[in-house]
């Protein structure tokens, strides 16, 4: 039957210390005593971001938040709220924050319970094409607050206080970047010279869709973040660089920009002040390298999207040679929350060095694929098993790939790694922009590494030699290995070459391109060795390593002989056939054709 109420108990670290497990027991007991177990759903949530007032209990419908709850309060809460339907005023606290808006609609499901939504707070909640929806949920209040009572310097201080770091993957402190860009104008350039703000929405990692979903679900938060950025550094013009393959995101963004202009939130004299700022959209043609900031800037300028050496960093010399503040979509989406809910609050979420939340596109061999946002410090295990629901079809977990083609594969022993920039880097992968692919036992790690390297090799712009030639050579070696032609020193060669490409490449694309290969060698070296020495692919993925054989089950029907495209099968009617291994091209046609299961592949 449908549950009438749902009660969520915060199970974040702060509340656990304050005895949320006791509350849970008391609640289960009390509900059973009152015969209400069937009517109430009890769920646990991840940190709800109200640690100071914890332990927290939330009752829906109505989104009543109770703070400082103890086990002894439970009978009263159940009696008053659940039985009599009157929320208990004594413990109820008033919470009106921007983050976690989704919680009222989705908070009681397992998939969403452990999540905390800051950047995606309105995604799936509001109509993204209606500015009124955004305004009604305190939209553009952060902008108004900034324009009313904060100097640009104070805004930057607030961002610094929050500890927010770049969500594009590199994790550079956002506040510091803003400060550098703001200062660049006042010290090194004449007063009144232009500056620019850029939103990097050139999402290119295979399987990643965080930025697309964020813009499609809530375009105004990105726009609001950018206007605040413009105010903080003294820019009048912003650009969103987004790929043309995202037509819906582009059209929603266009509409949002037009609506914001109409409401005097963009354009001249914003909200009656003398601050002017406008945003234009630039469409990218889909080159992966254009996600790199200097290549992106070159592309906006009308040139060919290729990176250039840094320094000078864009904060000093960016778009059209002017100081430029460039941040990723997710970073921008966090800004309004930092301003309204406060940098100090924001800094309470996450780990020591990584604050706030991170959005991930959870994909691959996992039951619940989807877009998730979790507090920093959540472990890979919690994401894959609690939110993701584990590995489907009773298969075993083998690895998790984070950071897309720039990241690495982590095996089971790293499942308890907390998500933050440093821990993931230490484990041998990277945070990246948010791709997370779960891999089960059926995958060949060499093949996976080859897939990612193929991608980066294709996308290498060709400007610097280490990346252009190096990735090509690495791919050749990998192809050789997966074709069963690997030589004993190939693995060492890959490591040496990878290390060199990492160090010598011009931009992030090349510097990170060897990561998938190096991390799989580090964590799955045995599989590489099997490929090279035994010419064996344990997952049976690398086709050319397969051997097809005809067993005594063969009745001599000659069907396989007829279907073989290279005439590798010999034999006469009613006699067992033989495959000439030298001629065989491992196409598998005979295997598919045989009606007697007489052909084996190994």
């Amino acid at each position, binding site marked *: 039957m449908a549950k009438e109420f749902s009660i969520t108990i915060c199970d974040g670290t702060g509340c656990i210390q304050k005895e949320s497990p006791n509350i849970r027991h008391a609640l289960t007991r009390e509900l059973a005593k009152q015969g209400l177990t069937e009517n109430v759903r009890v769920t646990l949530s991840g940190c709800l971001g109200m640690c100071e007032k914890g332990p927290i209990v939330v009752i829906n419908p109505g989104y009543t938040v109770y703070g400082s709850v103890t086990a002894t309060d439970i009978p009263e809460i159940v009696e008053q709220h659940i039985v009599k339907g009157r929320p208990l005023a004594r413990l109820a606290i008033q919470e009106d924050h921007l983050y976690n808006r989704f919680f009222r609609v989705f908070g009681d499901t397992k998939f969403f319970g452990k999540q905390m939504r800051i950047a995606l707070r309105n995604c799936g909640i509001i109509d993204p094409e209606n500015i009124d929806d955004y305004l009604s949920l305190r939209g553009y209040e952060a*902008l108004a607050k900034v324009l009313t*009572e904060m100097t640009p310097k104070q805004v930057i201080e607030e961002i610094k206080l929050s500890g927010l770091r770049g969500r594009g993957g590199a994790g550079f402190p956002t506040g510091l970047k803003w400060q550098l860009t703001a200062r660049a104008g006042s010290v090194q350039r004449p007063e009144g010279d232009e500056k620019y703000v850029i939103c990097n929405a050139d999402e290119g990692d295979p399987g990643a869709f965080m930025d697309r979903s964020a813009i499609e679900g809530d375009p105004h938060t990105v726009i609001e973040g950018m206007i605040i950025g413009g105010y903080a550094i003294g820019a009048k013009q912003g650009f969103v660089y987004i790929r043309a393959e995202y037509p819906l995101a582009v059209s929603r963004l266009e509409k949002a920009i037009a609506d914001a202009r109409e409401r005097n939130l963009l354009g001249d004299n914003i909200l009656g002040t003398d601050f002017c700022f406008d945003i234009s959209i630039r469409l990218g043609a889909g080159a992966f390298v254009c996600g790199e900031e200097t290549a992106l800037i070159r592309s906006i300028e009308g040139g060919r999207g290729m990176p250039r050496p840094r320094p000078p960093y864009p904060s000093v010399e960016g778009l059209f040679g002017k100081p430029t503040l460039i941040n990723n979509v997710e970073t921008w989406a966090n800004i309004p929350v930092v301003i309204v809910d406060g940098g100090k609050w924001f800094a309470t979420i996450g780990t020591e060095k990584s604050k706030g939340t991170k959005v991930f596109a959870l994909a691959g061999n996992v039951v619940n694929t989807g877009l998730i946002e979790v507090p920093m410090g959540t472990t890979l295990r919690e994401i894959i098993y609690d939110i993701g629901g584990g590995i489907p079809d009773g298969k075993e977990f083998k690895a998790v790939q984070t950071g897309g083609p720039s990241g690495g594969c982590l095996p089971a022993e790293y499942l308890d790694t907390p998500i933050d920039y440093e821990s993931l880097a230490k484990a041998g992968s990277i945070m990246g922009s948010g791709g997370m692919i779960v891999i089960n036992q059926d995958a060949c790690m060499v093949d996976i590494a080859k897939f990612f390297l193929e991608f980066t090799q294709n996308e290498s712009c060709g400007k610097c030699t280490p990346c252009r030639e190096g990735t090509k050579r690495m791919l050749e070696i990998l192809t050789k290995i997966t074709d069963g032609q690997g030589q004993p020193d190939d693995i060492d060669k890959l490591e040496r070459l990878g290390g060199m490409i990492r160090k010598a490449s011009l931009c992030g694309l090349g510097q990170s391109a060897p990561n998938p290969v190096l991390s799989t060698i580090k964590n799955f070296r045995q599989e590489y060795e099997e490929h090279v020495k035994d010419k064996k692919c344990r997952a049976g993925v690398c086709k050319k390593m397969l051997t097809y054989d005809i067993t005594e089950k063969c009745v001599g029907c000659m069907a396989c002989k007829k279907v073989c495209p290279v005439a590798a099968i010999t034999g006469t009617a009613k006699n067992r056939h033989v495959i000439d291994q030298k001629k065989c091209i491992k196409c598998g046609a005979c295997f598919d054709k045989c009606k007697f299961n007489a052909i084996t592949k190994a």
Partner: protein
Amino acid sequence: MLKPIDIIKKKRAEAVSRIVGKGYLSSKRVYVGMATCEIAAGSKEVMEVFKHAVTRGGLTDVYLSQKGCAGRCNLEPTVEVIEAGKNPVRYGKVTPEKAQQIIERHLKKGEVIEEWTID
């Protein structure tokens, strides 16, 4: 002269009244996921069914809106039915046929179709 924060509060009040004017306070609100991923999974057709019901099918007292992607990729298209004083009901893998059923059974008669809901 008004401060920006006062202007935005005024704009918010206007926004809320416009939303209310569009029927936000109807006894049921229905949200259909309309991000690229949802549309690819068939949400446009589902939306059409709801739209048709509201404009011509005699479905009254319902506020229909689109929304972005909530993140349940494997269960799309998703539809939420929100009713004051009740827990929100979330449907997954909604087809035009299921949408018709949701209209007939849930929206018109108040019966939650449990087997299609997301847990």
